[in-house]
């Protein structure tokens, strides 16, 4: 069993229930708003986490995205997940533009504190850091597929909806992304444990 957040971030909500929560939140229900925020926070944080250097940046950016989502929720239409990831992706672009942070992450900068401390082994931290590093060397679409498929654990249909692509294209992207990761790890001399 994988470790999740130590508090309930509610990253897993049934689609029908999510739709219900969204409608209630749009109508100004505070409880629904909180549930939705916890869901969105979990999703966005794990998406943003691998795209920025520091954990603090990921937290700040996630908070910013959540607030943007809350403010714009009333006008939200279409696929909710696609919508929130679009906002997150745009916020990431703004983040890099404003702070002039280089896309490339220096491996030396990555440290223990880059992920939560509870139940996380040094090996995991190392793997997190390697993955962060590797993702920055993929195309945006490839990095998105890796995040959605293996970190957010979405199925191909959901990923296709979010990315606005066909399921076939998602499968191709997934294959190419994993192959690029392998090549990158090989080049860097990292080994994957069996």
């Amino acid at each position, binding site marked *: 069993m994988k*470790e999740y957040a130590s508090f309930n971030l509610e990253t897993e909500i049934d689609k029908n229930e999510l739709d219900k929560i969204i409608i209630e939140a749009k109508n100004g229900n*505070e409880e629904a708003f909180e549930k939705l925020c916890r869901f969105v926070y979990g999703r966005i944080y794990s998406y943003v986490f691998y795209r920025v250097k520091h954990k603090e940046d990921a937290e700040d950016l996630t908070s910013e995205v*959540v*607030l943007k989502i809350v403010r714009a929720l009333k006008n939200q239409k279409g696929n909710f997940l696609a919508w929130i990831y679009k906002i997150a992706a745009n916020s990431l672009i703004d983040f890099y533009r404003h702070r002039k942070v280089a896309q490339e992450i220096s491996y030396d900068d990555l440290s223990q504190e880059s992920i939560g401390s509870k139940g996380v082994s040094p090996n995991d931290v190392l793997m*997190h850091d390697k993955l962060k590093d590797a993702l920055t060397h993929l195309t945006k679409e490839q990095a998105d597929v890796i995040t959605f*498929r293996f*970190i957010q654990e979405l199925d191909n249909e959901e990923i296709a909806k979010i990315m606005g692509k066909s399921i076939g294209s998602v499968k191709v992207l997934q*294959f190419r992304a994993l192959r690029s990761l392998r090549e990158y790890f090989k080049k860097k001399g990292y080994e*994957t*444990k069996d």
Partner: protein
Amino acid sequence: MKPKIEQILDLILEEIAKGKKIEECLKDYSDFVEELGPLLQIAKHINELPKPIPDETVITETLTNVKRFVTAQKQVRKEYSLKSIFSFQPAMIRAIATIILILIFGWVSISFSVKSLPGEFLYPIKIFTEKIHYILTINNKGKTELHIIFADRRTQELAKSFKKDEQLNRELLDTMLKEAHSALKLSESLSDTDTKVIIRKMDKIYHCQLNTLQELKKSICGCDTVIINNAINTCVNYHRCIEQKLNPQSNTLQSPCPCSTGECNCK
């Protein structure tokens, strides 16, 4: 048709997600072991990584901000809903203002046009209003009354216009007689009770017209004498018609109505 490598990779990933081991899955695809094996290992490692955990304080702070926003929005909604009862959208305000302006302008124009004379700026409005009034009047009684009113107005206008210009307005005189004739014609289609009331009103107007014409006759130039005389004759004829209608037994033999005998030249 052989499945492509990306499809095989996806199939194996599905199997792994269900709990199968990589080696087991790859047995069915021995040709792809070398290429897919490392990719599946990477996928497995990423998938097994613990989820990154944000600080609880940051989440709490974000939720507080969200709550603050939601509360503020509710407050705004309340205020807006209260305001919206008393205020209108700009477009609606413009539309209402335009309608009000048109109504005020129309009302003022109509009010001032009542006293206007032929040749004046507001006179066409007066005539237009009369026409609209006439069109909107459905029954014959109402229409007859309107002809009487219009005939009276034209008579007054004729007198005023002569005072002003010291010249006989022939067109107005013609209209005055036409209105009187129309009233007389329409009154024939009315019921007996209505006819009596209307005839009395008409009699009053013909008297008035006759007086006005006789007054004008004293002051007009010689070239208009024939016209005025004709008009006076027409009025007298109308008067005879009315008298006949008021007292059919006493007047019929002595002076028959020229309109009924075809002698009338009012048309």
